């Protein structure tokens, strides 16, 4: 962490960046995001296993952009989001400085987004055993049980959209859920609307989600909504050979392979 802080201080004092986006102590021992604009405040930066929120979400927020060029403290989740955002033309290489951070708090500097991409090759985006187990548990239920499980789980949702706000990929100015011509999704919080909102969210994140769990962590009701995107990730890897965020041309659903499976098509 020492070298990260040192680098941050350097960047601020040389005015190479205007703000450092990082983690700091929050209330109740839960880290929160910090937007450090003075060299003196650099000391407030922390990093530990509790730092799970995805800071990349701030890179596209207008309020943060107003502060000037940022440097961002970036563990693997954030790095993945940066690559995906770069591919989606939401951030430019020249507009940010990325302060990569290893799990043991060491600084990794990157000269380019391409360098981040090659760094990430050592961190394959894969579901861990526990996640796989949960997926298998749900998939193993009968059709009726799965339906009951999800209607029950999603009935808790009251459409606060905290999940959306926490997600680095949900940067749209006007989300489809706010579209009313036509009104694709009913506004009120009720079963059908909840169901459709979460299905749509999962589909819109197919091949884009970086599996950071920010949505789940942000959910006041603790809904397992991240398992919808996890399922999509598993399916994409298994059936379409998806490997993770990349700067190369094409997104999972905007490209195709002529030999994609079609055993379900008559």
């Amino acid at each position: 962490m020492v070298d990260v802080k040192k680098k941050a201080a350097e960047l601020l004092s040389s005015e190479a960046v205007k703000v450092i986006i990082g983690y700091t102590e929050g209330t109740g021992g839960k880290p929160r995001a910090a937007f450090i604009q003075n060299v003196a405040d650099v000391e407030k930066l922390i990093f530990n296993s509790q730092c799970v929120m995805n800071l990349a979400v701030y890179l596209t927020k207008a309020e943060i952009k107003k502060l000037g060029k940022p440097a961002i403290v970036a563990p693997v989740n954030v790095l993945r989001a940066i690559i995906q955002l770069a591919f989606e033309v939401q951030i430019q290489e020249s507009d940010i400085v990325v302060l990569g951070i290893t799990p043991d708090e060491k600084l990794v500097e990157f000269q380019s987004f391409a360098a981040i991409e090659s760094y990430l090759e050592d961190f394959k985006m894969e579901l861990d055993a526990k996640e796989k187990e949960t997926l298998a548990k749900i998939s193993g239920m009968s059709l009726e049980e799965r339906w009951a499980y999800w209607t029950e789980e999603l009935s808790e949702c009251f459409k606060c959209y905290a999940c959306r706000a926490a997600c680095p990929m949900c940067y749209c100015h006007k989300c489809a859920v706010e579209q009313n011509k036509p009104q694709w999704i009913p506004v009120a919080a009720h079963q059908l609307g909840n169901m459709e909102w979460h299905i749509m969210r999962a589909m819109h994140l197919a091949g884009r989600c970086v599996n950071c769990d920010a949505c789940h962590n942000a959910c006041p009701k603790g809904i397992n909504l991240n398992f919808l995107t996890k399922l999509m990730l598993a399916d994409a890897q298994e059936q379409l050979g998806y490997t993770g965020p990349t700067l190369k041309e094409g997104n999972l659903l905007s490209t195709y392979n002529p030999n994609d499976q079609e055993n379900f098509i008559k």
Partner: protein
Amino acid sequence: MSEFEPKIVAFVCNWCTYAGADLTGTSRIKYATNVKIVRFPCTGRIDFMLLLKAFGEGADGIIISGCHPNDCHYTSGNFHARRRWVMFRGLMNFMGIDTRRVQFSWVSAAEGAKWAEIVNTTVDEVRELGPYTDYKKVADYLETEVTNG
């Protein structure tokens, strides 16, 4: 249950399946009246949300049909659609939405007989499955809420 006649919506592309269904007509091949066709320019155009809307509004089954691989009038709309359905079908299934009620098919402009067969077997299969009450229940909940509120 024998009284139950399923409501089936068919989302088809203009160039292959719609034309194929036209051929079913010109060939006077008969099929069940349960199916109503909605014409799209291409399967690539079919928004997955429309499937949810159809179930929400009371469809018991859905047919999605377009050009065979490599035959898309727009080169690759069907390939894009196929990928979308691979992902969407997995998600629906995972959430307990009954994918047996969604029949994907390729029907070319020359396959009038195949269209009739797809319709008839889908109607028979969905009739066997019965009305899609699970999804409707969730949707009905919406209606009561709106009228009450």
